[in-house]
């Protein structure tokens, strides 16, 4: 494992459901527990940055400014597992009822959306 090039991935998980897409309520505890098990079993653990991350952005659908609070997770993974992270976060979009998830891979930012077809 030490010989493989590793990439640092960080992502923000808002602490509430998207207010426009859903009801803006906090997530069920089972969801956080599920996410942590996925991170542990798929990627061998995670770290959680201290404190709350507050973001403000323009919702592309409503054009309104949205402010949300998030937790910032970081994982270190072999580069060939980055696609697995994207897949997991795509599922997180659905389960946590988000329009997209902010992901930073070695400093390069992308926004992960829910699968185009399939899960509603």
């Amino acid at each position, binding site marked *: 494992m030490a010989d493989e090039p590793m990439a640092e991935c960080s992502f923000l998980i808002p602490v509430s459901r998207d207010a426009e897409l859903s009801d803006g309520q906090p997530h069920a*505890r089972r969801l956080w527990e599920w996410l942590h098990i996925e991170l542990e079993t798929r990627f061998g653990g995670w770290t959680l940055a201290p404190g709350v991350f507050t973001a403000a952005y323009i919702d592309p659908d409503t054009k309104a400014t949205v402010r949300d609070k998030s937790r910032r997770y970081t994982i270190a993974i072999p580069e060939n597992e980055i696609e697995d992270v994207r897949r997991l976060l795509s599922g997180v979009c659905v389960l946590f009822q988000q329009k997209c998830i902010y992901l930073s891979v070695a400093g390069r930012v992308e926004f992960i959306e829910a699968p185009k077809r399939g899960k509603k």
Partner: protein
Amino acid sequence: MAKSKTYTDLDGRVFGLATLAPDEAALVEKLQKYAKEHPDWFEYGNYWIAEFAKFRDKRGLTRRETIQTTAYRIGQDLESRIGLATGMVRQSDYRDELELLIGTKFDTRREFCEATGLSEDMLSHVLAKRKHLAIDTLADALARIGYTIRIAPLPDVR
């Protein structure tokens, strides 16, 4: 020495603490103390996983072994308790469990409905909290996919 010989989690599972190895017992005690003194969901979330990682790495646990440990389960449960007590997290109800089941085991709601015999329209109403499923309907639907309903003690938060 552990303050209590058992720990009961939010799902009613009881963990014996007296038989834990000294390093795991010490970690559990440390996490319980920290949770009591720092009832902040963000702060505790950052702390417990960092402390747990030291324990995991020292033991050389596999990924699967990790989540089976008492320390992991209690560490996570304490996070959930703080989240519930501070309003950062909701208690799960059967609809949350259904959504998680659909999202993790099925590609689509339609596929879930075909497997369980529930109508998509009904499922949509239930998940949107506009309707409830009768308990026998839910039990029958879940049985078709190998799941069941379980009655558990109401969680004692904190």
